[in-house]
């Protein structure tokens, strides 16, 4: 039974993630997408809002329920299915990251970014506040994120999604090779 706690290979997890696209159509004709929830959450706030945030967000409750499921899945994955072995990072990546100053490689989520203490540092502010802002802005501008474009859009052979995914990688490469070395 230790397959449950070990990390799952891409050729198991990938196809299952992809099958979520037809599954959501089967469950209720819904398009897979997660970043739309950021819009729904903004739209659910009271007070005056820009036009883009004025719509009947309650019709999108299913998407917020899906996000609630993601939270639940994170809890289950972290508590019942957690991998007891040390996290493994590719040796070449470790060497490159060590060169820019990363020292801890022992957890799936690096404490050198994801801890409350980091919020008091320039690095933590840039990554958590700046990164979050860019993800929220960019996802809505592009009309989707890694799930809506990267999985559902590519699966549906949408040209716009392919362009968006290319954009994701251009941005990610700039962040990795130009920005991260300067803020670490």
């Amino acid at each position, binding site marked *: 039974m230790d397959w449950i706690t070990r990390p*799952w290979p*891409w050729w198991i*997890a*990938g196809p299952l993630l*992809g*099958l*979520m*696209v*037809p599954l959501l*159509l089967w469950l*209720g*004709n819904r*398009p897979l997408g*997660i970043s739309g929830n950021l819009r729904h959450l*903004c739209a659910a706030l009271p007070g005056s809002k*820009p036009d*883009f945030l004025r719509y009947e967000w309650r019709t999108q409750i299913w*998407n917020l*329920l899906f*996000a609630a*499921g*993601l939270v*639940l*899945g*994170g*809890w*289950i994955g*972290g508590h019942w*299915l957690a991998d007891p072995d040390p996290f493994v*990072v*590719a040796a*070449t990546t470790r060497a490159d990251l060590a060169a820019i100053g990363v020292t801890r490689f022992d957890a*799936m989520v690096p404490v050198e970014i994801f*801890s409350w203490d980091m919020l008091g540092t320039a690095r933590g502010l840039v990554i958590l506040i700046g*990164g*979050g*802002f*860019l993800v*929220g*802005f*960019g*996802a*809505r*501008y*592009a*009309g*989707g*994120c*890694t*799930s809506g*474009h990267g999985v559902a859009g590519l*699966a*549906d052979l949408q040209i716009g999604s392919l*362009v*968006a995914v*290319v*954009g*994701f990688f251009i*941005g990610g490469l700039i962040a990795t090779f130009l920005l*991260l070395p300067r803020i670490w």
Partner: protein
Amino acid sequence: MRYVLAGAAFGILLTKSEAISWFRMQEMFRFQSFHMYGLLFSAAGAGALGLRFVKGRKNPRGETMTLAPKKIGTGIRYLAGGIIFGLGWGLSGVCPGPVFTLIGRGVGVAAVFLLSALAGTWAYAVLRPRLPH
């Protein structure tokens, strides 16, 4: 409720495939591991096969299963928005699915990322009339 279960399955898959890990994203952006590429492309491939099978048929609720095509326009929104998204994704290793999964995992500070993403969404809503699409 069925959407909560579907989301939970998605969150478990994101966790067990380690797609919530900043390190996995760094391996990917540095082209030092095939894992994330295999994950993304096998997901898109399986999704495409599944869509071939279900599109145009009726689901148990009697709805004809379909995905709305995305409007292309000039296409600039996909490239510009994609790059802006990618900058944040590359820095943080987090995208909108994993942020919820990380919060469930107990990484509380991910909530700060989520709040900031909401601020980014709001900023887009304000600037939207002036942005090329």
